């Protein structure tokens, strides 16, 4: 009758022996003890989350033969986005999105705060680098034909990410509130307003009124640091999931070394 019982859940089955147990003696050295503790901590988490399968699926999936340095442009873009997120959070600790104090607070960041100009410079030039990387990554995808079956949806998500990145740079441009910011935003909002029928209302929404007003900066700030980064993070998640799910493309000129005779039969 014992055979009819359901099998023991994986987590409760006896574990294979750890590296130190193989020798037949209990861990003695400090290093061994630490390693043992580490393994048991990971085991503890995995027993409760079952994440190890997913991590193995993500990290040890195979990348096709022949990939080159152009394949790092996507992860480089992700890295630039993370750098923007970190520097942006720090800048937010000093910035004040009000029409009367925004410029002063940015001047304070630039001139007074320790490393302030450096971090603001990283954020400013990071946006340029990110835009360049997005375009390069898109160019690689286009020239390698990587948007074709079965990766069409990932191309669409990528174009959404391009749009969101450009919106990010547009909303961020106003925040330092110097002459360049103000007039570039004025022109940008006017361009937005030329959309037929909805344009005028969209402008009123963006500015929170018919003119640049009390809460316009706060609105751009909220879009720039909450709404758009959230959307970008979610889209990057979907993008990466699809990359892992469908696999990285091989360069189009790489072919398998199967016997040409076999290939003929195949067709």
């Amino acid at each position: 009758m014992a055979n009819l019982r359901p099998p023991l859940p994986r987590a409760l089955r006896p574990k294979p022996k750890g590296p130190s147990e193989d020798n037949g003696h209990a861990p003695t050295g400090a290093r061994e003890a630490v390693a043992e503790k580490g393994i048991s901590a990971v085991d503890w988490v995995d027993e409760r989350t079952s994440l190890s399968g997913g991590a193995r699926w993500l990290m040890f999936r195979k990348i096709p033969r022949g990939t080159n340095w152009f394949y790092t442009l996507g992860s480089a873009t992700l890295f630039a986005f993370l750098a923007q997120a970190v520097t942006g959070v720090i800048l937010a600790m000093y910035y004040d999105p009000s029409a009367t104090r925004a410029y002063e607070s940015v001047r304070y960041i630039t001139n007074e705060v320790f490393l302030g100009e450096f971090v603001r410079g990283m954020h400013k030039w990071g946006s340029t680098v990110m835009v360049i990387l997005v375009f390069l990554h898109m160019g690689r995808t286009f020239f390698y034909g990587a948007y074709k079956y079965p990766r069409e949806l990932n191309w669409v998500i990528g174009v959404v990410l391009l749009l969101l990145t450009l919106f990010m740079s547009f909303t961020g441009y106003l925040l330092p509130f110097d002459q360049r910011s103000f007039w570039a935003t004025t022109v940008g909002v006017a361009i937005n307003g030329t959309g037929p029928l909805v344009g005028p209302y969209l402008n009123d929404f963006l500015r929170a009124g018919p003119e640049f007003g009390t809460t316009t900066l706060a609105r751009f700030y909220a879009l720039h640091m909450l709404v758009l980064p959230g959307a970008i993070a979610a889209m990057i998640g979907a993008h990466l999931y699809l990359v892992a799910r469908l696999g990285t493309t091989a360069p189009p000129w790489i072919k398998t070394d199967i016997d040409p005779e076999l290939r003929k039969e195949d067709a």
Partner: protein
Amino acid sequence: MPRDRKQSKQPKTTLEEQIPGAFEGETVSRRRFMTGTAHAAGGIAVAAFTLPAVGMAIGPMFEKAEQNWESVGPIGDFADDTYIPRTLTIVRGIGDAGKTTVYIRQYNSQLDSEERDEYNEFIAISTRCMHLGCPVRFVGASQRFICPCHGGVYDFEGKVSGGPPVRPLDRFYTRVRNGQLEIGPRFSVNSELRRFSPRDPGMPLDGIGQYVYPARPTTRKIPGT
């Protein structure tokens, strides 16, 4: 196969489905009713926080912005053959960011083609280019307004004389009180200088333009002008 379809007709009432405890004429089973109600309750709960949040975000689109008249000096300051720049506050409480520059002159019966009324004894012209909102400058030598961005040029009346702008420069209502010139809210004009509720730059007002780019609830021209 119309016959087949008739035979395998869906039961209409719970009674026909032979559900125990069914009532005569009952079409929705109690189980389905409860499930539907629970989903609806969830929907209401989600709406209960999204609708107020969305309402708060779009509220300013329906609020009329305050309009005020601001004195810019005695009427003797302004000539009828050239423009004098003056600075106005159009949005209060945000310091310099709420100001704008207007070019002001007296009505000139030889030059001006529009009809004279109580609001245009003085002409106050906005410095926003009607292409995309860059700051235009009045150049005395050529009697033209010139935009530095995309090459818009306007003549002495503010009408487009070249480049991409889609309508003449916007204007402000003016009136005289106790010998002082007062500047009021902004309005837009089409190529015949007919007045319209203020629009943003880039929105034509000739032909169907005024319907393609409608007036907004936040700002209106003075009724009857």
